[in-house]
């Protein structure tokens, strides 16, 4: 939490003023019993109507000052809390944006989203409540005790005993129940998981006739949960009665001491009333404090989680200044020189000793089983991951010598998952090249075999895509992600199994259209389908992270056993020739 406090630095004034005004308000509140004592002793006792009226006016005045103070405090608290959370969000978002693929993989998206949303809200709430209440409650509790001392010292000692006793009970029960509530939450989570599981797995559960068993299992979990809740409930049900007993027992002692002191003539009747009033103020504030501490604990836990995201820094460093050396155009656009890749935390290498050279304008097919490293290989070209050994060169230069924007603007990727963003088709297509004209967009759309359906959409390029592209079919989404990558004629185009949602005919037409594209675009096609890469200039065959072979279809079919196995599994031998 500590480190997150720097996001309050623009709100120093508010952070100090909010609790200060809260304390002022509380201070004025503490005067009320004294005013009352004056009314009783001097007003009623002395039959002084004027004094009663004057004191009444003082009470109203105290109320007004209290109101003004607390409104001021609320404003500053709200301003500081909201400002803090806005700055924290900005910083966290920027931080997450700067993380490399490796950190994104380790953190996981859902974690990052929770940190950005729920956790920050919780922290904001915590900051707000702390500024408002954290000083007020203890101030009233101890203030009441000090006021009691100003009235009568022996009576005040009752406060000295009562306050720790109450604190022990209130906080003790809280400390005891908190871990139990965590268990209750875990029980609830397990009931929730069961429910969800039975919805998503309804078909399988029914196919295996497991309804009865699942119901029994659920009831057991549910019973456990109820038992736990009842147990915690019994414990926390003690708070109110026990504190009630303590405060009122203290009042009895106070009244008795008061009786003795009044009889001795040391204090007056009105002062006894004031003492009793102070006693009743203590409990209310202690309970508030206990609730506040729960809020703070939650906020602190969230803050620590957020802090741990900040502590993760990008494992990848980029060159900041562009290399001023003259660029010559190389024959080879992409070169892998004995490249090895190991993901963070993984024991084994995902790619081992990959070595190949690709000329400008070539089409490269990459084939292999799941987990053989196809995606890992293409992800190294735009430097999404760094090699642990060897080096990747684009246009003759090591990718680690590039400024990020320069490298990535040469390369366009069509990811496996067809991701589009909320906005118009045009906005989505302009992602890579913000200056492209409509004519260029249409050309890309045509190449991506998307023209037919884009033309049918209402507003065509201005058609609004919903979040996650929900208002488009899988195939349509995929073709638009292809079009997005084609805009601006990239030097290198990577298609990572990006035609999987397309039927064979569209897939074939797409490949032909890309082949006909102007310019020297080098195309990498990752696929499971032998038909998709069959006509590539070069085919890289991957097997368990190693490059089994590289060559044309005919060469590979002749000499590469892995390729043969893949190919014939899709095209049985007896047919392969005749078709």
């Amino acid at each position, binding site marked *: 939490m500590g480190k997150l406090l720097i996001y309050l630095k623009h709100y120093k004034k508010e952070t100090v003023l909010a609790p200060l005004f809260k304390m002022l308000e509380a201070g004025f509140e503490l005067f009320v019993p004294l005013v009352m004592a004056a009314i009783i002793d001097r007003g009623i006792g002395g039959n*002084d109507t004027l004094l009663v009226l004057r004191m*009444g006016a003082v009470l109203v005045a105290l109320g007004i000052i209290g109101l003004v103070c607390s409104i001021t405090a609320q404003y500053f*608290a709200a301003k500081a*809390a909201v400002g803090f959370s806005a700055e924290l969000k900005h910083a966290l978002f920027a931080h997450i944006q700067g993380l490399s693929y490796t950190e994104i993989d380790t953190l996981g*998206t859902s974690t990052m*989203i929770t940190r950005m949303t729920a956790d920050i809200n919780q922290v904001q709430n915590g900051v*707000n409540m702390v500024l408002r209440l954290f000083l007020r409650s203890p101030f009233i509790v101890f203030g009441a005790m000090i006021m009691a001392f100003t009235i009568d010292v022996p009576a005040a000692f009752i406060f000295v005993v009562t306050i720790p006793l109450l604190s022990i009970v209130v906080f003790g029960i809280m400390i005891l129940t908190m871990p139990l509530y965590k268990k209750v939450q875990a029980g609830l989570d397990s009931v929730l998981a069961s429910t*969800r599981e039975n919805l998503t797995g309804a078909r399988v559960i029914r196919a295996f006739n497991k309804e009865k068993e699942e119901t029994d299992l659920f009831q057991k979990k549910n019973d456990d949960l109820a038992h736990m809740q009842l147990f915690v409930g019994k414990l926390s049900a003690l708070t109110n009665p026990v504190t009630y007993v303590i405060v009122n027992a203290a009042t009895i002692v106070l009244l008795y001491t008061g009786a003795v002191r009044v009889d001795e003539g040391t204090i007056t009747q009105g002062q*006894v009333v004031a003492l009793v009033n102070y006693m009743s103020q203590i409990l209310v504030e202690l309970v508030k404090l206990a609730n506040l501490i729960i809020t703070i604990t939650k906020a602190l836990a969230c803050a620590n989680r957020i802090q741990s995201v900040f502590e993760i820094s990008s494992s990848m460093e980029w060159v900041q200044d562009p290399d001023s050396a003259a660029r010559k155009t190389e024959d080879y656009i992409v070169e892998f020189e004995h490249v090895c890749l190991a993901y963070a935390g993984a024991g084994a290498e995902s790619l081992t000793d990959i070595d190949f050279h690709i000329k400008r304008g070539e089409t490269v097919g990459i084939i292999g089983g799941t987990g053989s490293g196809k995606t890992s290989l293409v992800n190294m070209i735009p430097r999404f991951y760094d090699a642990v050994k060897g080096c990747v060169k684009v246009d003759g230069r090591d990718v680690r010598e590039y400024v990020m924007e320069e490298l990535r603007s040469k390369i366009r990727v069509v990811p496996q998952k067809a991701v589009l963003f*909320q906005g118009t088709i045009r906005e989505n297509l302009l992602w890579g090249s913000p200056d492209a004209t409509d004519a260029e967009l249409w050309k890309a759309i045509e190449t991506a075999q998307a023209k037919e359906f884009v033309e049918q959409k209402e507003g065509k390029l201005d058609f609004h895509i919903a979040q996650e592209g929900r208002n488009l079919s899988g195939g349509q989404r995929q073709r638009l992600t292809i079009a997005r990558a084609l805009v601006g004629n990239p030097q290198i185009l990577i298609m990572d199994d990006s035609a999987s949602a397309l039927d064979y005919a569209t897939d074939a037409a797409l490949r032909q259209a890309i082949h006909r594209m102007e310019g020297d675009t080098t195309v990498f096609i990752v696929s499971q389908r032998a038909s998709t890469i069959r006509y590539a200039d070069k085919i890289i065959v991957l097997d368990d992270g190693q490059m089994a072979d590289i060559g044309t279809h005919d060469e590979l079919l002749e000499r590469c056993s892995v390729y043969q196995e893949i190919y014939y599994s899709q095209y049985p031998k007896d047919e392969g020739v005749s078709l």
Partner: protein
Amino acid sequence: MKEQENVKRRSGQRETILTVLKYIRKYWIYLALSIVMAALTVSLTLYLPILTGQVIDLLIDKGLVEFPGVFRILKKMAVAIAVTAAAQWIMNVCNNQMTYRIVQDVRNEAFRKIEILPLKYIDGHSHGEVVSRVIADVDQFADGLLMGFTQFFTGVITILGTLGFMLSVNVVVTGVVVLITPLSFLVAAFIAKKTYVMFRLQSETRGEQTALIEEMIGNQKVVQAFSHEDETMEAFDGINDRLKKCSLKAIFYSSLTNPATRFVNNLVYAGVAVTGALYAIRGGISIGQLSCFLTYANQYTKPFNEISGVVTELQNALACAARIFELIGEDAQIPDKENAKELGCVDGSVDLQHVYFSYVPDKKLITDFNLSVRAGQRVAIVGPTGCGKTTIINLLMRFYDVQKGAICVDGTDIRDVTRRSLRSNYGMVLQETWLKAGTIRDNIVMGRPDATDEEIIAAAKLSHAHSFIKRMPQGYDTVIGEDGGNLSQGQKQLLCITRVMLCLPPMLILDEATSSIDTRTEIRIQKAFATMMEGRTSFIVAHRLSTIREADVILVMKDGNVIEQGSHETLLEQGGFYATLYNSQFAPAT
């Protein structure tokens, strides 16, 4: 129109309340005890300030304190305090019992309903929404309705008791309290009304921000691939700034409620102090009574605030209750016929006779579909993605019932046999692999809980799952998380196959998942599938040419319909959709 809606809503509310009462009835004793204890607690709590006042009245001045009287009252106070504390505790425990038991009952019932809901409901409703009914809504309902009820009850008694006492002592001072107090509700209501709009704006803006966060962080790899970070940051800051402004407003204005009502309270206090003191000077009331009045004035608004809070909470709770009761009241699937037969071990002939089916009434899907499968035959179902291949599975397994016509297994209409016996004759491997949270063994033995370790391992070897299971940290006892946890898609698929391999029923429904398993494992799975299909009637959602070619019957589906049916050769000769589909696979790229 609006009125009608209102009437409908009200009658709906009445129904909900009746249902709630039905659940409470079982625990009426807790409810009764809780009410009695609440009444006791409240009246004693109100009595205590009176006793305090009486003591104060005895503390007149130096040497004038009447100690025996003081002791007598203090003793009374001690008893009252002890009884109050006990009553309060019993009340709390009763409320807990009632609340959590009812929650337990409702959840159990909801879950039992989920197990017998027609799949149509499960397919047609977002799972998250159903889960939130069972979890969040039930919690809200319990907190709001049951806690709210007791708060409402104690609140009303407190108000009435306080009023009664105050009136009995002094009418004018009571008048001051009763007249000024409503001001605090007016202020609170005014603030609530004003801030509602701000809160709505805040939650809308927050929703907008969350959507952006989900979109951009969820797809951060794409954002980075296109170097789109700066634009994203800009969009984010725009929303963040707007959110900051409207949050400040919403939080600040809503936080005025407390100071404002406290201020009104202070006014009441001052009013009571002045009028009370003036009366006391004239000897109208004693000082003890005045102090008691002040205590009451201090807490008089509290039950009002609680009650107004409770009313909104009650409404919310009723809405939640209605949602969960709606789920519980949902029509279950048509139960098995009373005289339903147990389908023994079948030989596996399947007949679909004049089958009509559609998911939505006005969108025809399958019309007059006939198919006769002899025991041991293979049926391949082919067609582009999303053409409704699963519909056939839904009908065969009786996840859905046909609307007209009949499906017969071994000559018996499947509606005349128990679902249990029908389904245990099928082995099913779906493309969406589903595994339950538990050990690998738990998942494999789903169909045969009594299988021995040897049988399990034998099945796993047949499906080529043994080698990867063996390498898991605890082998067959490795616990996998919800929906397969960290297993790869291919491994999950293998486990699903092992699951069926272990029981090997006479009929199979298989979905060839090509994309998730690597080609070489797939060849082995193909072999396993082949072993499995030996002599068994099989329905295969097929992607693989060899499977399709070896099938006895090919069903070609498009847009949910079976459009062609026949063997590979006859279909190719027909030159229809199948032929196009088949040929497109081999179109050269250049």
